[in-house]
């Protein structure tokens, strides 16, 4: 393997991890509540703008801004679930779809109205740095973002695995009737879950802001990307989201490098179709 191919793969992995974190939020929300968040990319973009504002106004590095933004997004998700989404739990998919498409439209155009159409960059002092490893050039921001993404994902894993609230959320996903039987406060747990899903998105969006520039037009592409990743990885599977992110990151990178960059998303969609047909639960998912 040539060094340059290796370079392409490494880039794919690093970017894929951040995408994976974004997809993780989608996966958590669906895995527990069966709500497909069609406004996912829009929330990601809001987080990018939040990171931009914190950086411009208070000069906070996104790697630090991650925590407050994730916290605020948790709150937004919690409230959103309690108010807007709850009546739609268990309703038909197309009804959820219209609700969230409506929400997405409001968000995108709200951003356009407030911030205008120009892309908003975060100019970190190390924006242009890269590590040289042998003949490889690896961007510093991507490395940092990937590490942060892994850390956030790990924190989420630990939460679900080792805390009682996390276990209770898994219990709701496992057997909703059972959750009612033992008296779990399902509504509250759902709100926590939506909060956590959005916190993931908040963190991912903040990291994304170091890689790409915030602009309202990104949202739909991110929603599609997140969907592709979670389906490939396994909707509802946490590891699946990260693995799917890496897989999509690397396959797009390789296809872009060896075939034609403008065709690279075609390979993600082809991958998506193949996975849906051969293993609809996704590579690491259980049949839902």
């Amino acid at each position, binding site marked *: 393997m040539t060094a340059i191919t290796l370079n392409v793969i490494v880039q794919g992995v690093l970017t894929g991890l951040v995408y994976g974190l974004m997809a993780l939020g989608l996966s958590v929300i669906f895995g527990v509540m069966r709500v497909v968040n069609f406004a996912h990319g829009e929330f990601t973009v809001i987080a990018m703008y939040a990171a931009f504002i914190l950086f411009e106004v208070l000069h906070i590095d996104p790697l630090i801004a991650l925590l407050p933004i994730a916290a605020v997004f948790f709150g937004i998700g919690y409230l959103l679930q309690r108010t807007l989404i709850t009546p739609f739990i268990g*309703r038909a*998919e197309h009804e959820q779809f219209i609700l969230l498409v409506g929400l*997405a*439209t409001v968000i995108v155009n709200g951003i356009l109205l407030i911030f205008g159409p120009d892309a908003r960059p975060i100019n970190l002092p190390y924006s242009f740095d890269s590590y040289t490893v042998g003949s490889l050039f690896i961007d510093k921001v991507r490395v940092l973002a990937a590490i942060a993404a892994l850390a956030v994902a790990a924190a989420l894993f630990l939460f679900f695995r080792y805390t009682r609230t996390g276990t209770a959320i898994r219990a709701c996903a496992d057997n909703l009737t059972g959750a009612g039987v033992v008296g779990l406060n399902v509504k509250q747990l759902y709100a926590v879950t939506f909060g956590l899903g959005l916190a993931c998105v908040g963190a991912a969006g903040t990291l994304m802001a170091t890689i790409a520039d915030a602009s309202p037009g990104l949202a739909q592409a991110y929603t599609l990307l997140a969907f592709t990743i979670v389906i490939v990885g396994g*909707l509802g599977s946490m590891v699946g989201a990260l693995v799917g992110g890496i897989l999509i990151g690397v396959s797009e990178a390789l296809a872009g490098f060896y075939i034609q960059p403008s065709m690279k998303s075609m390979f993600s969609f082809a991958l998506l179709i193949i996975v849906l047909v051969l293993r609809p639960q996704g590579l690491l998912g259980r049949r839902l």
Partner: protein
Amino acid sequence: MSGLWHNAGWHGKAIALLLLLAFLAAPLVSDRYLLSVLILVFYFAYLGQAWNLLMGFAGQLSLGHALYLGLGAYTATALWTLFGIGPWIGVFIAIPVAAAAGMFVGWLGWRFAIEGVYFALLTIAFAEFTRIGFDHLQITGASGGLFLSVNGPGADKWWNLGGGPLLYYYLSLILAVGATFLVARLRQSSLGYRWLAVRENPEAAQAVGINIFRARMIAMLISSSMTAVGGVFYGFYYRNLFPSQVFDISRSIELILAPIIGGLGTIFGPVVGAIILTPLGESLTGLMEAFGINAPGAKLIFYGIVLMIIISLRPDGVWPWLARHLKLDGARK
């Protein structure tokens, strides 16, 4: 439709007749702006009927109907620009092309038991895949677009769909009314009953001898064919096509709004939805201008809010509610 007609009360009949007469006579009294809005209303009502057949009747959620729209549009316009084959012939080639794509998507999905959200995502994936494919298809101009001339030989003749708004007005009206009749007819056929059974409970449907795979495939066949015709209309009405426009997911989304808002699985839902949504967008534009607001995006914010409100308050759509209030029979139809 005959059953529907008989079931409708006298005022239901009266309303239907009056509406139809009003639409037929509209060009006599209305200005061109209103006509252009009505063309969009009928166009979306038509596409809504096509989509509703698959979703509302056969219960399968497709978020990738832009695929059939785009294939229909591209096939007919490419035949016209490249080979001089007119749209009235082209449409009969566009239909099988789009239908074949639809059957493939359906076959892949339902043979492998992909349903619900997963099927929806499969349809998105195919539409996006095709969009990028057409971005690279040199014969149709790739991402640079496909253009129809307005003054080539025969380009201005009605049989080549060249002409003014009247042609397109009546064409879209015929499409919308025809689709409504067709859907009503299908609903009252054995096929329609089978679709509803499959939608309501696939397992029970199978137990009364319905081949659910075949029933869904037929729904897909008709739905994608109808959508392809809409695509031909679109291609000739706008006279230019870009993959990034016609295959885009936002096309798929905009064509499903009317049937859902109007009432899924009902015959008049897609029509009512289109009558609400398109003028809603237009009137928001008008209102903002009247108040002297130039805030790009504000209109769509309101539009999004209205969508959320309607789906929260009338999850079954506006038409069943409306029909109850107007005391029209067949509210569920």
